[in-house]
């Protein structure tokens, strides 16, 4: 269960204060797939960065299983990100000099899996689960297609069995065919593990198929 209360985020920019989020309230049940739509600059990425403890809110609460993650210290934020959250980015953001399997193993290392051989085995399973062959698993990101890279990134996000997956326009760089496949993959995998997903998307088709859809407009959130 994820509950957001009175969430506000403002940035101090050169030309004054930017109110990226104003008084946002919503909640998502465990295992639900929620989508967020909204124009560019409406505050979607800002919301995800707060939910994922990449940044701290100006005001408000973010309750994940009744713990307020808005008030975590730096070290606890890191642990929270490693264990509770899986991120999927529009630009995949894989580490370029690590192979696909090493990228997944890196997340497992941060998740606290000590044994290298266990990490290797788990990463292999995860990558097979998202459809990467043994050969493709050994390639560096530059030698994989966009769709393949996003699959690796999903495997990485799922690595530590997080409570919440946060996806910021995960299909934004993919053609619509591949985008639909990626969304289906996210959907199927998380259903199996009962993971909550909050995904930002431009694709209203996709948004229509999720459990709930929120609209962000100038930092204000409404349920569709």
């Amino acid at each position, binding site marked *: 269960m994820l509950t957001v209360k009175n969430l506000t985020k403002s940035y101090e920019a050169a030309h004054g204060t930017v109110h990226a989020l104003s008084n946002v309230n919503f909640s998502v049940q465990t295992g639900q797939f929620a989508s967020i739509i909204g124009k560019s600059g409406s505050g979607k*990425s800002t919301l*995800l*960065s707060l939910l*994922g403890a*990449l*940044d701290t809110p100006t005001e408000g609460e973010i309750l994940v299983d009744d713990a307020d993650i808005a008030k975590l210290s*730096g*070290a606890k934020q*890191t*642990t929270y*990100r*490693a*264990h509770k*959250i899986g*991120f999927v*980015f*529009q*630009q995949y*953001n894989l*580490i*370029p*000099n*690590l192979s696909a399997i*090493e990228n997944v*193993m*890196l*997340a497992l*290392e*941060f*998740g606290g899996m000590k044994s*290298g051989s266990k990490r290797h085995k788990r990463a292999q399973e995860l990558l097979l689960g998202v459809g990467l062959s043994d050969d493709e698993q050994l390639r560096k990101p530059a030698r994989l297609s966009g769709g393949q890279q996003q699959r690796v990134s999903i495997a*990485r996000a799922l690595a*530590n069995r997080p409570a919440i997956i946060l996806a*910021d*326009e995960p299909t*934004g760089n993919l053609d619509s065919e591949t985008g639909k496949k990626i969304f289906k993959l996210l959907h199927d995998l998380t259903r199996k593990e009962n993971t909550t997903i909050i995904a930002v998307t431009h694709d209203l088709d996709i948004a229509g198929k999720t459990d709930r859809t929120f609209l962000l407009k100038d930092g204000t959130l409404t349920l569709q």
Partner: protein
Amino acid sequence: MNVITRGMRGALRSPVRSGAIIAMLAISIGLILAMLVARASVNAKISEVKATTATALTINPAGIQGGMGGGDPLTADQVKTIRNTAHISSVSAILTDQLGTTDTNLTPSFELGSFGKRMMRFDSGSSTGPSTNISGNADGNTEAKTPPAPRTSVTGTTNPSSITPSDKLTSGAMIDGNSSDKVALIGKSLADKNSLSVGSTFTAYGQTITVKGIFSVDNAFENNGIIVPLATLQTLTAQPGAVTNIAATVDSSDNVSSTVASLKKSLGDKADVTSQEEEAASSLAPLESIAGLALAGVIGASIAGATIVLLAMIMVVRERRREIGVIKAIGGSNAKVISQFMTEGMTLTVIGGIIGIVLGIAVSGPMTQSLVSSSKDGAPTNGQQGGPTSGSNKPAVFLRSARTQLTTNVNNVTSTLTPQTVVISIGIVALIAIIGSAVPAWAIARVRPAEVLRTE
């Protein structure tokens, strides 16, 4: 794979750039080592020269320079005063004399020549001339009748090996300078001329003297000389306690001027005290400036090395901001990211350091030599200090040979590459890596993970 292996792989990610950084580092580290070696060798030589030459004192009786001039030799009391002066660590006393043809059965190994004739022009009539032999022994009449011949120098010394080092002995053994036995070391030319070998005897001052050793030096004058214990010559010439030259050593170069002052005070105008301190200081000046230069080089090259690592790491961190943000976003701690990037910096530094140290070892010898020889002209090297000299040139020879020895020492700076020097340069390399990585580490800690959500 852990932080360390990731860091090492990261360091070699872009071979051309890493290669360039490593090459620059290797050059500055090589320079650091070479400069350290140069400095150590030069400093070692400076203290060696200071310990030997700069602490040497010469004390001559007033008016006497070897066998020339007039006045009285130093007395036993004066020698005792010198020995008891504070900071005097060793004293070797010399009495010089000459043997004319009536004093000995030996034939000199060289001819009188025009120089010898000129030196002897006063001797025919007077027995009290300035360069007269032993007053008690001279017999004007007999001397006047003998055909003129060059004299043979006799040196009585408490320390024969300071005059003729034992490696100059071609046969026989050293004599004891503190005995009063009738024994002698004789020069090779003199021995050959008179068919003498170890165990042979000859006559001088009416006494029989046994040859204990034969020495050979590259000096015809000295090879015609005789060395006997000081007390022996004092007895033979009836001059108990008399000394015509003292070579004294001061315990430390810091005490030379005060010791000279107190000697001048206690001996008054009876003796001339000369130190080679100033001469040593001026000979050492170029070496000291090289040592200073080398230190500046070490500091400069260290700063250059640290700057190279610093700039390289800042470049790397700037370029890979997003990667740093991603690692943080997926749960990597600041400590992990920093260790990874520090390992990258260390890897470059260590590789550069290994190549640099090999480079430094290779160039340090020639570099030290060229630094030193460009500051001093290659001087002819006659390392013979002193010699069985007598006659007219004793102090001059002594000073000249001391100076040539100094020049030799100064030029013979052997590059001393000690394990200590290598350890110091490894320490500097580690310091460079730490300094060079500290600032980027600070920059890494400030990367906000939220930046990875931004799409440019």
